[in-house]
């Protein structure tokens, strides 16, 4: 930080000065403000994961207590109990494990398939064209419908939702990577790599792929937000539900029977956790994206 100590008049005029020239405390607050959304998103997810793994309630999420059925929220059961006498707080955290894991696995699979397909689709000539027309045809019909059909046909198992998430999301990764790769292909460093005799695969994976990281990270976050909602929707419809393990969607489905009799806590609390998680992922995506726009202008 040698250049920040050039003089007091310099250090105090932070406005209009590039961050590199600011005093370190200014740099810190500048960074925090710039990343506030991302930090908030990660904080929410961090608390959620910690709570899900440690299990802060004295109640077993898989063990019901028939003597306390449909109890309103109280000091003993902060989120109340459902119609089987399960503690809703305990089950909400237990469900977080399943929902988050499914989303991460699904998006991970979509990322792996999508990035590979997208990179190869950016190749000149017939290969790229064929892959893109294939993607068009694939996306032309309702993917959510297809994913429901896949889960139903593969056996009604929560794990199969991973494939549904991957099917819905991989075309977006593929298109994103391809469009970015097409731009990068024309840049000087890629031409230089080609001139040095690097193979096609090496150029794609070692030179183009690293430069799409920010875009991909933003899409991972958007995709995860979307995946959490899709998982909740599918399990709400009863797809992939296996009774003892809770998911947020299945809990809301169960609680929706109480909507007309007025036990609101049965569906509201798991629902709020879906909203909170989706907002957290969206904040992270917004933060990465707006930073990328600031730096590259597009």
């Amino acid at each position: 930080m040698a250049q920040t100590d050039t003089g007091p008049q310099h250090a105090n005029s932070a406005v209009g000065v590039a961050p590199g020239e600011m005093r370190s405390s200014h740099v810190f607050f500048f960074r925090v403000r710039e990343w506030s959304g991302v930090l908030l998103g990660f904080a929410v997810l961090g608390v959620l994961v910690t709570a899900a793994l440690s299990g802060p309630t004295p109640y077993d999420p898989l063990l019901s207590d028939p003597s306390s059925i449909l109890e309103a929220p109280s000091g003993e059961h902060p989120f109340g109990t459902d119609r089987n006498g399960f503690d809703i707080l305990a089950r909400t955290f237990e469900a977080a494990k399943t929902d988050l894991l499914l989303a991460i696995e699904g998006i991970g699979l979509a990322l792996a398939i999508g990035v590979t397909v997208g990179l190869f689709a950016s190749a000149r000539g017939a290969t790229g064209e064929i892959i893109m027309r294939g993607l068009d045809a694939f996306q032309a019909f309702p993917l959510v419908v297809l994913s429901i059909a896949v889960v139903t046909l593969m056996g009604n198992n929560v794990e199969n939702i991973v494939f549904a998430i991957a099917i819905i999301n991989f075309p977006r990764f593929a298109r994103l990577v391809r469009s970015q790769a097409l731009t990068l292909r024309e840049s000087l460093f890629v031409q230089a790599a080609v001139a040095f005799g690097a193979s096609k695969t090496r150029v794609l994976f070692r030179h183009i792929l690293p430069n799409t990281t920010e875009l991909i990270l933003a899409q991972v976050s958007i995709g995860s937000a979307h995946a959490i909602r899709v998982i909740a929707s599918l399990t709400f419809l009863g797809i992939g539900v296996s009774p003892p393990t809770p998911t947020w969607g299945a809990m809301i489905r169960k609680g929706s029977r109480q909507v007309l009799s007025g036990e609101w806590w049965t569906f509201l609390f798991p629902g709020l956790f879906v909203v909170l998680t989706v907002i957290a992922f969206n904040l992270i995506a917004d933060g990465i994206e707006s930073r990328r726009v600031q730096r590259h202008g597009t």
Partner: protein
Amino acid sequence: MNIDPVRLRGIGKIVGRRLAVLPIALLAVATIAFFLIHLMPGDPAIAIAGEFANDEDIQKVRERLNLHRSDVDQYRMYIAGILRGDLGREFYTGLSVAGSIRRTLPNSAELVLAGLLIAGVIGVSLGTVASILRRRPGDRVARFVLTVTQSIPDFLLALILIYWLYTVFEFAPSPLGRIGVDTSAIAGREGSFLLLGSVFRGEWVLTRQLIGHMFMPAFTVGVVYSAYLGRVTRAALAPALDSPHVEFARACGLRPLTVLRYAWSEARTPAITYFAILFGALIGGVTIIETIFAWGGFGQWGLQAILALDIPAIQGFVLVTGTITLLVYLALDVLILILDPRVVYGGQGGTN
């Protein structure tokens, strides 16, 4: 709005060309609808017959669905049926698939249209506010509101609305279909555009009832999808307000509202595009809301078909959603050609 006659002829040519390709695209959709079912992992006959079925039962299911024939024969029979306007019969109920589509589609169309109008009002006004207040705190607030509405799952919002408006305050009518439990007022009119029909016939009592029952599901659709329209409005309108020609309009001393109108005419193309894409996607896609409100809609019917692995019904569902999407996109392209003089499709020069 006056359109240059040369351009109008060009538009006519483009529409003609797109209409000529339409049958081929429809055949492609029908083919996808067919192979979607037939190339999926697992044997549908076993899934339909159930876990405890013996070989004879499974064979019976195969014969009823023609699954014992070769794929090529099945495909030929299926396409021939479509050309006759025959989409087959539902496996479990024996009803004609085409009849079920005709019965459910108008319900969905009215719900989606009402919902998207609400989404347009909420989204476009939030997006406009965010654009006017760009780079100020109000912008962040408006965008955060949009992020939140985008994050609420539709079924949760529907349940909260039912709980507050029906269970607690008894303000809204029962969330049971288009007109509640007593359906005598609409007897014999299933499968028509109930709301539009009642307005045209001047049956105001019925119109009020229908709107009352439509309020909660349409509002749910409206809030959930307002985020898409709001974001796209913000993304297009904010740069438009900073553009040189809007700056010039402002420098001329035009009233702020007039300036906003000029900027908006530049930003409306992406907003209209999103509106149309959402309409195409939601016609068979408001499944969950239709299920919760027992709406009797097309998406609800399609979902039941998929869960029951009712092959003729699933094929009909995919065929119709694909066809509607194609037609909506065609209408969208024509509309944008008329509205936006910068757009040139295909032809010489210009980008598409």
